C-alpha cells in the first residue's frame, strides 16, 4: 500500500489573540510524529485544526497538505483525516458491526464483508451483533481502530489514545496500533504526555512550549 505524506506548513494557532503554537513539518507515509508539551499549550487544537473542526474561539493560519492536496478549505468529512480520541467512543446506540459499517463509504462494494473481515482481523469474529457497552476496554480500543481504518483515511491523528487504558493493556494496544498504521503506510501525528508512547512510535518528537 502506498501512502502520501502529510505536510504542515507554517501553522500558527492563537486563542483570543494569545499565541499558542507554531509548527512547520512533514510526515512521511507510515511515519509517526509525536507532539509533546504541557497541558493548555494547544496540542489538541493542532489536531482539531488539521481534522477541520477548530472551535471559532481560535484563530489559525498555515497550510495543511495531504500529498499535493490542500485541506484547508475542505470540510472535515472530506479531508480523509482519521482521528482516535482518548476514549474509544463507540456509538452507544449502534451494534459493534453497525459502528464499523457507519465508517464504510457508501460507494464501496461488499460493505458487510469488509466489516466481517475487519472484526476477524482483530480476533472479534462473532461480536458483530453485540452491544458495544458489553465489550472490554481492549476490545473497544481494537474496534475503534478498525472503524478508523474502514473509513480509508489518508492520514491519522492520535489524541492520547492510550492514556485511559490499564497498564497491561496499554503496551499491547500501543504495539497493535503503531504496527497497523505502519502497515497501512499512513502518516500519523500522536499527541501525548507519555514518553513511552513517544518511544514506541519510533518517530521524531517535537516538544511545544
Amino acid at each position: 500500500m502506498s501512502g502520501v505524506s502529510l505536510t504542515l506548513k507554517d501553522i500558527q494557532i492563537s486563542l483570543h489573540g494569545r499565541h499558542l503554537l507554531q509548527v512547520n513539518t512533514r510526515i512521511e507515509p507510515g511515519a509517526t510524529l509525536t507532539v509533546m508539551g504541557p497541558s493548555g499549550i494547544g496540542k489538541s487544537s493542532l489536531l482539531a485544526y488539521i481534522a477541520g473542526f477548530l472551535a471559532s474561539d481560535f484563530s489559525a493560519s498555515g497550510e495543511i497538505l495531504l500529498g499535493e492536496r490542500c485541506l484547508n478549505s475542505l470540510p472535515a468529512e472530506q479531508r480523509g483525516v482519521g482521528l482516535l480520541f482518548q476514549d474509544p467512543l463507540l456509538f452507544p446506540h449502534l451494534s459493534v458491526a453497525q459502528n464499523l459499517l457507519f465508517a464504510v463509504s457508501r460507494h464501496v462494494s461488499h460493505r458487510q464483508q469488509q466489516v466481517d473481515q475487519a472484526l476477524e482481523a482483530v480476533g472479534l469474529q462473532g461480536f458483530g451483533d453485540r452491544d458495544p457497552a458489553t465489550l472490554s476496554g481492549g476490545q473497544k480500543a481494537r474496534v475503534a481502530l478498525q472503524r478508523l481504518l474502514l473509513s480509508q483515511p489518508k492520514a491519522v491523528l492520535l489524541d492520547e489514545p492510550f492514556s485511559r487504558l490499564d497498564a497491561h493493556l496499554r503496551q499491547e494496544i500501543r504495539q497493535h496500533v503503531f504496527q497497523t498504521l505502519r502497515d497501512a503506510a499512513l502518516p500519523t501525528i500522536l499527541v501525548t504526555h507519555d514518553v513511552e508512547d513517544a518511544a514506541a512510535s519510533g518517530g521524531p518528537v517535537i516538544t511545544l512550549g
Partner: protein
Amino acid sequence: MIALLTLPVLAGLSAILLPAFGYLPALQHDEPGLMVWRELFTTPGIGRSAWLSLSAALLTPLLSLTLVMLFLASTSGTRWASAMRRLVAPLLAVPHAAAAFGLAFLIAPSGLMFRLVSPELSGWQRPPDLLILNDSLGLTMMLGLVLKEIPFLLLMALAALPQLNADQRVNMARSLGYRPILAWLWTVAPALYPLLRLPLFAVIAFASATVDVALILGPTLPPTLSVRIIGWFSDPDLNQRLLASAAALLQLMITLSAIGVWIAAEKIVAGLYRALLLSGNRRQGHAVLNVLGKSLMVITLGTLLISLMLLVVQAFAGTWRFPDNLPATWTLQHWQTVGPLLLAPLGNTLLLGLLSTALAVLLVVAVLEHESRQGRKPAQILWAIYIPLLVPQVAFLYGLTLLLEQLRWQPGLMMVGFAHSLFVVPYVYLSLAEPYRRLDPRWQQLAATLGASPNRTWWHIKLPMLLAPLATAFAVGLAVSIGQYLATLLTGAGRVTTLTTEAVALASGGTRGTIAVWALLQAAIPMLGFAMALMLPRFWWRKRRDMTGQLT
C-alpha cells in the same frame, strides 16, 4: 424564526395600543387621548387589583425557587432526585385549572380536610363558614400557583444539574469540612441559579397574568387585574374594550416591572448570599434545612397528588354530602355526559398537538443544529423566543385575531395550529436546548473524521442519541398545545373545538363531576405523552446499555 414568534406578539400588542388611547373607529371612537387611562385609574379597586398581580408575580417564584433549592440541597446525591424526576414529569402535565379545582375541593370549608374531622372531632354537621378560598390577600391563589410551578422548576433544575458536576462540587466542599446541604447550597446553587433564570421569568409572567387559577382560587373583591381584563374584554358594552385594552397594557407593564424588581433583587440577594457563603459556616442549620427541604417538598407534592386523586373520586362520585368522607353512591353519569361531546374534539386536540409540536420541534432542532454546525455560542437574540411566554396572553391574542382577520385568513385548524406554535416553540426550546448543546461534540467530530457528512451524522448519530430528550420535548410541547384555551378560541373563531375549549364551555355551567372528568381527560393525553417519552427510549434502546437513562 425569531421574527415568526415575536411579530405576531408585537402585532397583537399594537392592535390594543390604539384602543388604549381612545382610538377604535369600528365603534365610532376616533379622537385619541388619555381619557381611557384616566377612566382606568379611577376604576374602584384598580390599585388593589394591580397590587395583587404584582405580589403574586413576585411571591410565587420566590416560594417555588426556595422550596426547589432546599429540596435539591437536602437530597443531592440520593435516590430521591431520580424518584422525584419520574413523579414530577406527569405532574407537570396536569393543567393549572385542573390542579386548582382539586386543591379547592381539598381545602374549602366543605372540602375533604374539613370532612375528615367532621362531625366526630369538630362537631360540624354543616360546613363552617370560613373564608379560605378566594381570600382577599390571594394566599390560596399563590398556594395553587406554587403547587404547579414547583414541578416545572424542579424539572428544569434536574435537567440543568448534570452539566454542573454537582457531586464533584459537593464532595470538594465536604472535604473542606462543610456538611452536605451547606456544601450544595454554597457550591452548586450559585451555579444552578443562572440556568433557572429564564424558567423563573416564565413563572413570574404566568403568575402575574394567570386567569384560570385566579378565577378559581383568587380574590374576588376585587379580583386580580387579569381577571378584570377578561371581564372588560367580554363586557356586552363594547366600549369597555377601550378600558380592557388600556388595562392589558397596564398588565404588560406590571409583568415587566415584576421581572425588573426580580432582577434588581437578584443583585442584592447575590451580595448577601456571597457574604453568607464566605462566613465560613460549615454546619450550622444543617439539621433544620435537611428536615425542611424534604418535608416541605413532600407536603407540596403530596397536596398536589391528593388534589388529583380527589378529581378521580369526584369523576365517579354520585351523591356526596358534607360531612361524608367518601361519596354515598358512585356513578358513571359524568363520563356519559362528557363522553359523546368529547369524541370529535379529541381528534382536533391530537391533530393540533401533533401538528404544532412537530413544527416546533422541527424549528427548534433546525436552530440548534445550525448553531452546532456553525460551532458558535448560542446567539443573544435567542431570548426573544420567550417573548410569547413573557407577554400576557390577554394582552396580545385579541390583537392577533384582528391581524389574522385583516389578512383574510379563514379561521381554522391551520390558524389555531400556528397560534399554538407560538407557545409550544418556547417550551420545546426550553426543554431541548440544554441536552442538545450538552451532547459531546466529539461524536460529531468523530463521525466527520469517518467521512460522514453533517446530514448523515445528524440522521444516524445525533438524532438517535438525542431520542430521549427529543421525546421529552415532544411531550412537553404536546402538553402545552393541549392546555391552550384563549389562543384556540380566538384564532379558531370558536369553530375549532378541542378538549380544552369544550371542557371550559361545559364547566361554565358544570357540576363538580363533569369538571373532574374534563380535568382528568385534559391531563390524560399529556400524561400519556410523558409516559411514552419515558418509556419509548427505554424500550427502543433496551439492548443498548449505555443508552438507557444517561441522556434524558
